[in-house]
């Protein structure tokens, strides 16, 4: 059981780090778009590179946010039955769901996403537009990277469920939605 706790905490850290990177990208993206608007309107200066940076950052925000939201239980559930269930039943739902849904889904996207990014790297793909960003493989490899961390977050759901089953943790404490609205 001790190693499960260790693993659980370690995996949780991985998801949190994803979240921090996404938060940084979020703030940068808002500034990026704001700057582009001001530069275009006030100084008639447009940079396609900076315009492309907008969607690069936006992609990082929503992709790396997914494993983070998995750990903080930020993904919406239909709670018609879920809220009525006890801790053990919830743990089983999450444990089985993570094993049959989350991890295989992440695995497939990671493998095919890896080929997708690798092909881009081999071709030296960049933007086709004037002044666009080079090294398209970097943003493309965020897809397999995210999938990898969704996988670890899925594993994290399993370890957490085991802790709940062992009576060491409960689902009611960590509910991020409560802090939001």
């Amino acid at each position, binding site marked *: 059981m001790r190693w499960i706790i260790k693993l659980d905490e370690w995996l949780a850290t991985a998801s949190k780090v994803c979240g921090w990177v996404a938060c940084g990208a979020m703030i940068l993206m808002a500034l990026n778009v704001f700057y582009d608007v001001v530069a275009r309107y006030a100084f008639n200066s447009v940079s396609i590179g900076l315009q492309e940076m907008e969607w690069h950052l936006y992609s990082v925000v929503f992709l790396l946010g997914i494993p983070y939201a998995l750990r903080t239980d930020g993904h919406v*559930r239909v709670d018609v039955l879920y809220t009525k269930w006890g801790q053990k039943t919830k743990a089983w739902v999450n444990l089985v769901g993570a094993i049959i849904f989350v991890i295989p889904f992440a695995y497939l996207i990671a493998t095919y996403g890896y080929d997708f990014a690798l092909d881009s790297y081999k071709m030296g793909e960049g933007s086709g537009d004037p002044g666009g960003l080079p090294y398209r493989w970097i943003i493309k490899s965020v897809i397999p990277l995210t999938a990898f961390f969704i996988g670890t977050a899925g594993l994290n759901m399993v370890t957490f469920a085991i802790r709940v089953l062992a009576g060491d943790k409960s689902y009611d404490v960590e509910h991020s939605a409560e802090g939001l609205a």
Partner: protein
Amino acid sequence: MTGIVMFGAALLLLMVGFPVAFTFGGVALFFGIYAQGMDLFAFMPFRIMSVMQNKVLMAVPLFIFMGVVLQRTKLAEQLLTSMGRLFGGLPGGLAISTIVVGALLAASTGVVGASVVAMGLISLPVMLAHNYDKRLSTGVICASGTLGQIVPPSIILIILGDVLGLPVGDLFRAAVGPGVVLIGLYIAYILIMTRFKPETAPAMPADHSLSRKQEIGAALLAIIPPLALIVVVLGSIFAGIATPTESSALGGVGAIVLAIIYRQFSFRMVWDAAKDTVSVTAMVFAILIGATAFSMVFSYTGGDYLLEDWLHMLPGDHWGFIILSMVVILILGFFIDFVEISFIIVPILSPVAEAMGVNMLWFAILIAMNLQTSFLTPPFGFALFYLKGVAPPQVRTIDIYKGIIPFILLQILVLAMIIIFPEWFGMTDLATY
């Protein structure tokens, strides 16, 4: 048939309560591998990439960020409660204020995830804190957050313009009337409903230290800064400073500027706002990605061809065709998303409509109204999931499902009005040559 069975399976499994996004993704995985093998999922990186490169969706995190900052700095609360105070002893003031703010946001974005979540963050806590009925609150938010689909600019109208070959400008102009009528009906509904059930939307408590005049003055004064922010966002679009998507970034930065003015600013606040934004954004996009896997499996297992076959059986007379095609779109809207409907169903219906001499502009507005409704229909209405994702736990999915029903009925009413009295909306039902 795989596609049809898959819908049933997803529906059942959603009820278990595993996260919606991964239930869609996981169900797609099983049916996809069963019908086509693993390699079908080699298409997933391409689909994710097309979401990444869809810059219009960038409005989602940016609008959410604005909403979170307004909420954390209590500016949203100030806006809504002050607007609510203007109604004095009249119940439903907060709900009507929410509809007004939703209508303003609708005019600045056409992305449903953006406005529903922003409205959920801004006004749900305020309404609940003032003892509003959960169902009424969530219904008002989903309905007003979805207004952006019919009030221009709107993605639905742009896609329909493309599919039907109609100028976007004509569609935008034609949609204004129905949008305004819809907003008016929402407000009328609140006014009438609260007459009979005032306890579902209690009036704001009056501040007895102030006279009614002073109260109105104070309220108006308090409304100005957050309203100015919305005006900046909208104004930047109308003045051509920013595209609708970019305007949401102005909103986010503007909200931070307001926070500085009101001494609510701290780097901690910005970081926490970013954290909330990331979490909610990820929730929205995970659903989009799960749903894209789902629709991939649906169409690659022949679901799209099956739908086509069914549609070719629609009747051939004018009114029969119009009414049945509206019913079909409404029902399909329960299950599949509006882009699929626009691209698969509409091209099958449009040549028939054209051959009957139907005014295509009118037909397009009917479809747009109908598709807007599809975001709200349980069990798969995305707006409902999005709101649930930001609602406190005591708001149950079932509350949201029930709360939205009156608003769906109002939308159907407007749809019927446009069908029966097109001239009220400056249109005709038949093409005029």
